[in-house]
């Protein structure tokens, strides 16, 4: 992460957009990481439904949780970037922004649904189905900018490849890698905590304390 920040500020050049373009190096990798987390959550939900593994349900829940955190960071950093570039914190006419907000709110509602059902197989099944449905929104959100007629939101990746200098692309890749590693670390950390919590609860029940 430190290396990525160093590359952003000391290696990647400042382009015609100005200094605010530096937000791109963290904003876009955070958004991609959020997509990856939601995708992983959906995959684990699918594994739960397919193989009936109770561990996959917990993994799906933790992935969605991390995804929502990264989603919130995407919205906030994106709003800051929009304020500098467009002069507005939010533009409702931009499909990319609105679709990401819908995706974020959809996964926020996942927690409301999950905790409105008593713990058990029913909750795990309902959560898994919901996580899988949400993943459909990811390609729509990602492609919205390419399908939109108005191009206020910049397009960094087209069919011709990344629209940036080599040094900028390297910085972007390092930032993306560091974000994925950070998300992976947080995922493992939270998962270990939740598993330990469950085991302790089982132990307490067995001991009758």
């Amino acid at each position, binding site marked *: 992460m430190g290396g990525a920040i160093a590359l952003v500020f000391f290696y990647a050049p400042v382009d015609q957009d100005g*200094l605010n373009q530096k937000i791109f190096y963290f904003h876009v990798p955070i958004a991609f990481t959020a997509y990856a987390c939601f995708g992983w959550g959906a995959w684990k939900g699918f594994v739960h439904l397919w193989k009936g593994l109770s561990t996959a349900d917990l993994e799906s829940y933790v992935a969605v949780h991390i995804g929502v955190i990264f989603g919130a960071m995407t919205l*906030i950093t994106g709003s800051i*970037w929009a304020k500098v570039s467009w002069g507005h914190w939010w533009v409702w006419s931009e499909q990319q922004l609105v679709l990401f907000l819908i995706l974020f709110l959809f996964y926020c509602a996942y927690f409301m649904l999950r905790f409105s059902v008593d713990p058990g197989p029913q909750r795990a099944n309902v959560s898994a189905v919901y996580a899988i449905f949400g993943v459909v929104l990811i390609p729509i959100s990602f492609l919205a900018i390419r399908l939109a007629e108005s191009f206020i939101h910049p397009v960094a990746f087209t069919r011709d490849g990344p629209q940036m200098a080599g040094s900028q692309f390297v910085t972007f890749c390092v930032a993306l890698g560091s974000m994925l590693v950070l998300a992976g670390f947080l995922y493992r950390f939270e998962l270990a905590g939740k598993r*330990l*919590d469950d085991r*302790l609860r089982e132990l307490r029940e067995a001991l009758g304390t």
Partner: protein
Amino acid sequence: MTAEEKYVAAAYLVVFLFVLVYVLIMAVKVNRLEREVGELAEHLLREQEHRESGDREKVEVG
């Protein structure tokens, strides 16, 4: 510091704060789990001692 620099700093600060708050919450949780494990271990030790002392009382000498 220009307005642009302030916004860039704010964006990076937001990311840092999110990660920091998350790690702090997890640290609090780990502390709670550690305390609970300690309580359970203490409870088990007490039960074991109680069982052993009970067994000793039952043994007839001679």
